[in-house]
């Protein structure tokens, strides 16, 4: 007879990533840095939002960006114009950032910049509605973006990211007049799984609503 054994393991698959994320967060805390993880589907407006944010807040706080652009440095190049450290992470074919990749970015930050002087690190995750939510990178808060062109049902269909978000930006609201989209329904769909999320409706193009986002950001800064 073939004898087999059974061992209880009870180990989370994301255990290693979670440990790495906690380690990254400890670094940020030691420097007094607040880290935000920006997540959305491709093209929802993360980079444009970062540009507007860097431009508006550069006199108030000191910022850096960790840029998870999939294969190119296009987004990083756009952001460098604002004279803040922009650390590109080449994620290769991975569809999300993980804590190890961000640890590489933190290493660069530590050795080529002055992390003690930085207040806020904004991480632009890879455009993807599904996976980034499962891979914490060491952030203090998760920011999800959903553009009005994506449809009201996206939070219901891709719930994990919206359920975990601390802040939701409904983006490109300048386009609402051209679409059959119901902002209230988007908000209700998110609230039914995440009643605590802060929601701001914004347009990076017209700058409508951005001031509330900036105010929220400033409340998150540690020093």
């Amino acid at each position: 007879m073939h004898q087999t054994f059974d061992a209880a393991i009870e180990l989370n698959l994301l255990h290693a990533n979670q440990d790495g994320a906690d380690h990254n967060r400890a670094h940020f805390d030691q420097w007094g840095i607040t880290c935000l993880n920006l997540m959305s589907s491709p093209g929802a407006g993360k980079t444009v939002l970062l540009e507007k944010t860097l431009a508006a807040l550069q006199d108030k706080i000191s910022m850096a960006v960790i840029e998870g652009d999939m294969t190119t440095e296009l987004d990083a190049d756009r952001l460098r114009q604002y004279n803040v450290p922009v650390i590109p992470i080449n994620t290769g074919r991975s569809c999300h950032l993980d804590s190890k990749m961000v640890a590489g970015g933190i290493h660069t930050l530590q050795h080529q910049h002055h992390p003690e002087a930085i207040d806020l690190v904004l991480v632009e995750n890879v455009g993807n509605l599904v996976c980034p939510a499962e891979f914490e990178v060491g952030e203090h808060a998760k920011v999800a973006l959903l553009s009005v062109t994506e449809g009201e049902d996206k939070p219901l269909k891709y719930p994990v990211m919206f359920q975990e978000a601390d802040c939701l930006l409904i983006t490109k609201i300048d386009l609402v007049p051209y679409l059959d989209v119901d902002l209230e329904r988007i908000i209700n769909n998110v609230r039914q799984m995440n009643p605590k999320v802060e929601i701001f409706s914004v347009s990076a193009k017209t700058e409508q609503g951005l001031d509330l986002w900036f105010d929220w950001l400033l409340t998150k800064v540690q020093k």
Partner: protein
Amino acid sequence: MHETDMTKALIFTVKDWLSTQSEKQQIEKIHLVVGQFTCVEPASLKFAFEVQTRNTFLEGVELIIKDIPLIAFCHLCQHEYKPQIGLQYSCPDCNSPMEDIRSGRELKIDHIEYSTIEESAHDKLRALKD
């Protein structure tokens, strides 16, 4: 694509566990517990596992995935309910938002079935004699 990363994490974790074991072991089955409120699709994970373990110490190992339903608890009604993923997450009775997830977020290796290598060689010998 994320199933590729989950599989990497899985292989990594199993390797780690094996290295803590004193006897040499042949893993036969890995039992996973995967909640329905995660980004992991069991069928894709099984496929990724098969592909990524080819020509490794895990080749041919069976991956058994237990699906765990999303269950939430409504504090107003004081009862558990099963949100309809993709359609509705709020309580079907009072419409309160889903706040307290009781299950469905699991992503773990539950247990591993294995035989020690000596044992299985011994078994083979016996099978030949019989």
